[in-house]
């Protein structure tokens, strides 16, 4: 049985005429790794700041563990935040940074330093306490920010693009560490990111944001295999979204549908049970494990195919400029809502 950690009921945050968050409703389960995914300006960070209490909703209701939290300042909320640029206090040692949450509660110095040291060990930074934040690398600062946010033992941890400033290798390592930390501590993580790979690989559920609204809330697998809108299909992974006249000819309806590149194949001729369309191969990109083929079909629409290299005999593959036929199974098509 799980209870709801965070619940937003038609929450809006407007800045004058700008609707940063526009009627968002969602509920996050206790102990869940929940991601808010979207391009910049989609409202995901504002949503996080509403939960943290840095912003107050223009309208709507926000519940933290069943308690109304709209109007409460950040220091009255049982949530803590890991900031995008860490926001470590430059005039304090690493240990004092981590112990800050206990200090403002009036915990004695010896006790809070002991707990801070434990928190630093949790993020594999034991013994770094006496340094200044400026003496640490980006990845280490990231861990200090994490330890500092965890010291108050919050029930919900908010993470605002915490890995955005790290390089790729470190980012992948930290993703795995964050995920395992969340499993060990069993607390709710609300994770804001614009990186769909990150959201898919770490989360239990993902909310996809666009223009201040939620397009879809679902498990990573469902988001990828069953996108509901054109926006989600295009933002989560690569998708061939077919609409208009071509869609009508192929499916009998102008309603857009999407097919993932890896579900498309080259075909010799129109086969009975497969959907296919003819076009000209305009681009071939080699990606190591796979290759990407771009085919321009009728209506000037470009379809992208992705094939594992070695899957097919290289000599039989078409070349740039060839006329080809692209085919896919009918069940690979996902009907989309046209909005978004």
């Amino acid at each position, binding site marked *: 049985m799980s209870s709801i950690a965070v619940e937003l009921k038609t929450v809006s945050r407007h800045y004058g005429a700008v609707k940063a968050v526009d009627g968002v409703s969602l509920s996050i389960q206790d102990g869940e790794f929940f991601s808010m995914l979207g391009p910049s300006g989609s409202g995901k960070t504002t949503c996080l700041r509403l939960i*943290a*209490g*840095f912003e107050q909703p223009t309208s709507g209701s926000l519940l933290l563990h069943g308690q109304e939290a709209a109007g409460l*300042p*950040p*220091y009255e909320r049982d*949530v*803590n*935040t890991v*900031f995008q*640029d860490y*926001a*470590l*206090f*430059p*005039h304090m040692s690493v240990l004092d940074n981590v112990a*800050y*949450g206990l*200090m*403002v*509660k009036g915990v004695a110095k010896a006790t809070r330093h002991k707990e801070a040291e434990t928190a630093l060990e949790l993020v594999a930074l034991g013994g770094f306490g006496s340094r200044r934040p400026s003496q640490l690398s980006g990845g280490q600062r990231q861990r200090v920010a994490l330890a*500092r*946010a965890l*010291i*108050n033992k919050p029930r919900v941890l908010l993470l605002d693009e915490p890995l955005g400033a790290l390089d790729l290798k470190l980012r992948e390592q930290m993703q795995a560490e964050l995920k395992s930390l969340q499993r060990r501590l069993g607390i709710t993580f609300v994770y804001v990111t614009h990186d769909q790979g990150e959201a898919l690989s770490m989360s239990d559920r993902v909310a996809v944001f666009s223009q201040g609204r939620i397009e879809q809330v679902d498990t990573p697998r469902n988001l990828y295999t069953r996108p509901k809108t054109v926006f989600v299909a295009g933002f989560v992974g690569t998708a061939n979204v077919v609409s208009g006249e071509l869609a009508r000819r192929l499916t009998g309806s102008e309603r857009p549908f999407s097919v993932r590149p890896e579900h498309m194949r080259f075909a010799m001729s129109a086969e009975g049970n497969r959907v296919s369309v003819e076009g000209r191969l305009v681009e071939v990109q080699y990606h190591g494990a796979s290759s990407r083929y771009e085919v321009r079909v009728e209506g000037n629409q470009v379809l992208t195919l992705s094939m594992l290299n070695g899957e097919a005999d290289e000599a039989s593959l078409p070349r740039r400029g060839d006329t080809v036929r692209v085919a896919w199974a009918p069940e690979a098509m996902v009907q989309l809502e046209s909005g978004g």
Partner: protein
Amino acid sequence: METLPGVALPAPARPRAGVARVVANVLYRRSTLYLLLLLTPPLLWFGGVYLGSLLSLLVQSFYTFDDFTMGVTPELTWANYKALLDAANHDIILRTLSMAGTVTVASAVLGFPVAYYMARYATGWRKGFFYIAVMLPMWASYIVKAYSWTVILSKGGIIYWLVERLYLLPALEWALTLPGVGGSSLSTSNLGRFLVFTYIWLPYMILPIQAAIERVPGNLMQAAADLGARPTQSFRTVLLPLAFPGVVAGSIFTFSLTLGDYIIPQLVGPSGLFIGNMVYTMQGSIGNIPMAASFTVVPIVIIGIYLTVARKLGAFDAL
């Protein structure tokens, strides 16, 4: 490279040789020479004109002044520094120092909220208004401002008029009877002198604090609140320590400007000289350059001690 038929690519433009280019290339290769060229004029100015004259001041403070011939001889002596400890001179130093300290504390207390508002809340035209409001008094002549204050503070002046309308005249008259504060009227009291000093130097306190607060990232205050700090706590533990170098910078201005001033003590307040008046009298009227020089060394030493203490207290840790 593929070439398109019928299209001739233009030859790449060759850089033209010229004196400027040759010089630029030489300077690019010899970066030390470049640095030397850039640094020589300012180093000459600071080293020669600025530090040199300070050094000559220091040396002259050890020269001997003959009371009888009114002449200066380059015989080194501690006599001038010993004279600083005479009761009369000692009083002058204490009087100046306590005024400088009081003015500095008052400027910091008055200036911080203004600087905080300017840095954190004011935007657009409000910010511009505050900048101009703080800097405008600095554009006006210092003498004019000092003289107008003698009128403002005098009996029959606007302050007396206002205090009378508010039925507070007895309170003011009582305050003027206090030792160390009072005088026969506001314009001849230490209180009046303090008001004028604080007015004149306040902008020099506001601007450095404002700059320091501006440099404190806004999300640090949010992080503090997020971790459970109430506004007073986050102010005390995050903003104040980070803005403190600005307060120290501002206090160096207000403190040293008050220490060295000799106009306001002449125009406003009770009789009794300040260090600046003493320097002026010693070198202007009497010609006792060595004594004037030793008086001048006093504020330099005080500021030096002040900065050392501030550094020990960690005022510059956040820089």
